[in-house]
């Protein structure tokens, strides 16, 4: 049984902890308020220099000097906020070499090899703004960091470095989850020259279907004609998943030769392929596809009916006429879908077709 002595000790301990918590709350609030004021003051001090640079195109040296006068964490937070909120990629490129050798920048970047993940995280964030070719080894290590947050931000840092890390990034792509792949495609897309050749080399039927779908998605994100030609050659691949990704990617290739390939995919056995083919035909405004698309509105799969009807509305003109004909037809499911889409505003058609 618990003795009174044990309870007394527990009460005393709890009392002390409560007192510490209360004292901590007061001190913390004072510290937070002071810190917030310092950050706000720092950002306010930067604003006139930023204005001069952005509006009057004066040299950014004054910004560098203003940042130098701030405590490290204030300077870092201010730059992070500026970079994502105000500065274009080109402006960041002009500012980066001036900042790269500042003491406070070196201090943050030294955290890139720290055992503490949040210091590596901050280093990756700053590298995504000021990183240069010399930082490639550090960025490579951050790209394979144990913390997923660090890895994610390092993708942006790698994107700054041009082609140096392309092979490294492409090697990691197939093992990533969809969302991270999308993030990487966007980052890689900033350096098409280096990436196009690398992706093109990987787009061969010898690849496994899973890896092939990754390269097809990368090609779609790049939207470069030469890689998309390679993608089109995969349209007859025996794996339906590959054909699905091909159909999705081809909406980025507005060439006359693409339409017959997509029309063939519109007849595919897999409804997912048919739906994506219909969507691609709409995105390409393929007027010649109006009749096959009108037939696809009568498909047994809901998604195919939906995508085909949207495609007809997106193409417009005679295709819209076909849609209205379906809306007056005998097939109940097709009629409902055609009526639904025909009644949408053009803004809604664009929005629903895109996502």
């Amino acid at each position, binding site marked *: *049984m*618990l003795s*009174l002595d044990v*309870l*007394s000790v*527990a*009460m005393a301990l*709890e*009392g002390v*902890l*409560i007192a510490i*918590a*209360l004292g*901590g*709350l007061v001190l*913390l*609030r004072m510290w*937070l308020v002071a810190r917030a004021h310092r950050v706000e003051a720092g950002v306010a001090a930067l604003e006139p220099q930023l204005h001069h640079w952005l509006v009057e195109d004066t040299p950014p040296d004054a910004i560098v000097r203003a940042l130098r006068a701030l405590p490290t964490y204030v300077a870092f937070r201010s730059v*992070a*906020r500026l*970079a*994502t*909120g105000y500065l274009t990629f080109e402006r960041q490129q002009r500012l980066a070499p001036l900042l790269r050798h500042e003491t406070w920048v070196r201090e943050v970047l030294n955290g890139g090899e720290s055992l503490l*993940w*949040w210091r590596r*995280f901050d280093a990756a*964030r700053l590298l995504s703004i000021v990183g240069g070719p010399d930082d490639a080894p550090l960025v490579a290590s951050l790209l394979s960091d144990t913390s*997923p*947050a660090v*890895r*994610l*931000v390092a993708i*942006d840092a790698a994107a700054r470095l041009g082609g140096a890390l392309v092979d490294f990034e492409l090697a990691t792509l197939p093992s*990533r*989850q*969809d*969302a*991270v*792949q*999308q*993030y990487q495609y*966007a980052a890689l897309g900033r350096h098409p020259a280096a990436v196009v050749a690398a992706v093109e080399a990987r787009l061969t039927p010898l690849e496994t279907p899973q890896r092939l779908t990754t390269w097809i998605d990368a090609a779609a994100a790049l939207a470069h004609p030469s890689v998309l030609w390679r993608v089109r050659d995969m349209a007859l691949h025996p794996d339906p998943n590959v054909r699905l990704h091909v159909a999705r990617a081809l909406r980025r290739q507005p060439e006359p030769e693409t339409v017959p390939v997509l029309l063939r995919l519109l007849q595919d056995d897999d409804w997912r392929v048919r739906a994506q083919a219909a969507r691609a035909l709409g995105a390409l405004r393929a007027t010649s596809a109006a009749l096959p698309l009108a037939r696809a509105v009568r498909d047994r799969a*809901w998604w195919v*009916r*939906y995508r085909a009807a949207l495609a007809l509305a997106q193409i417009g003109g005679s295709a819209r006429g076909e849609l209205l004909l379906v809306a007056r037809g005998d097939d109940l*499911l097709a*009629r*409902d*879908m055609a*009526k*639904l889409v025909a*009644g*949408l*505003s053009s*803004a*809604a058609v664009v*929005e*629903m077709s895109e*996502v």
Partner: protein
Amino acid sequence: MADFLHGPWFVDLVRTADLAILWYMLLVNSFFALLLVLAAPQLFAHWRFGSEDVLARSLTSSAVPRVSILVPAYNEAVTIVDSLRALLTLQYPYFEVILVNDGSKDETMQVLVDAYDLYEVPPAVMRRLRTERVKAYYRSRTWTKLLVVDKHNGGKADSLNVALDAARFPYVLACDADTLIEPDALLRLARPFLFDQKIAAVGGTIRVVNSCTVQEGRVTEARVDHRWLSGIQTVEYLRAFLFGRLGWNLLGGNLIISGAFGLFRRDYLTEILGYATSTVTEDFELIVRLQRHLREQDIAAKVVFIPDPVAWTEVPTSVAVFGRQRERWHRGLIATMVAHRQVLFNPKYGATGLIAMPYFLFAELLAPVVEATGLVITVLCTMAGILSVRFAVAFFIAAYLFGTLLSLAAILMEEVSFHRYRRPADTARLLWFAFIEPFGFRQITVWFRLKAFYKFLKGDHSWGRMRREGFGATTPASTSASAGL
């Protein structure tokens, strides 16, 4: 009577019960302390991950998943325009909103038609789940992201199933019509997807909106209500979300994603046939079923909670409404535990079977029984002289201080991380409510949770009537919108 109370077998029985209750409290409180310890580093991590620049990168990226927001609404005419506007103007690149009017008896449907310029469209949606009959589907001329479904009354779960059927996107966010979601909350909620994790569901924090300043469906200033019932619930919610659920992430058996604000993979929900219509706590039941499904199908997807996406909800301000809510929650807990009893202590279900379900059985389901029994025994024994008064008082003080310490820890974590309550007066109120919570509020909660056992045994499946006050300040914009101007 005195002889009976001093009989040797009774004394032994009481001492054994007393000892069991003491051990129970020690174990449960230790577990709470463990959750607190596990939550602290995660809270720090999420606070850092939520930096503005990292968030801004996600917003401009095409990587975030497409999300259909499912909103069941029943008699929500007072708040629906504001809450729907808040949803439609979320900072998120790809989403749609599917609002289901569950046969409301008030003007909910008419208010929606007027405010959002709705027109009827053909029923061209996929039907995969069995639900009550749908009357009509509507789209909006002014908001392309909006689909409204008008259906016969079938309950919240049934409405969510209708919305799930109509959803186009691979992820669905279930939220209540009376919940105000912060503009960047969905973006924050999508963060785990960018962290290379296979995710089945993500939950965010629910905070109390009572007394906050609300403009155009947005909370512009977080305040703590001065009324004791809603004020104490504010502390209770902080405690539940900031360390309760966060702590469960590391234990691997997160069983609660609030029905008012949770993101799910749609295909997993359709595989388990959507929400169960027979339960009164469809959110808890859904997660238990989802966790079971993931284990049984050997799917390595996680159910996680992250603290920084915030949705605001109105909590009851009258004891009667509060009681109905707590009684219903507890009845739902009992029903779910009974329905999924084969998961309990079953190693096949991993942390869910071996940690989470036993925790919910002992620390949640049985808590009111143990608490009430402990109180009665202690009072009786003290009166009969079996237990010393000093010991009983010391025990109550120790338990009180421990509970208060947990609340203070939650307030401290809130101050360190998100610091939503900017005014010192609000922090002072939080502290005050943390100190007075054990007096009255706890006992009322225990009473209504005990009533849940009785109602469960009676086979009661009702929800009980809820009353909404509406969100604090109503702006001219929202008034004109609801008038269809």
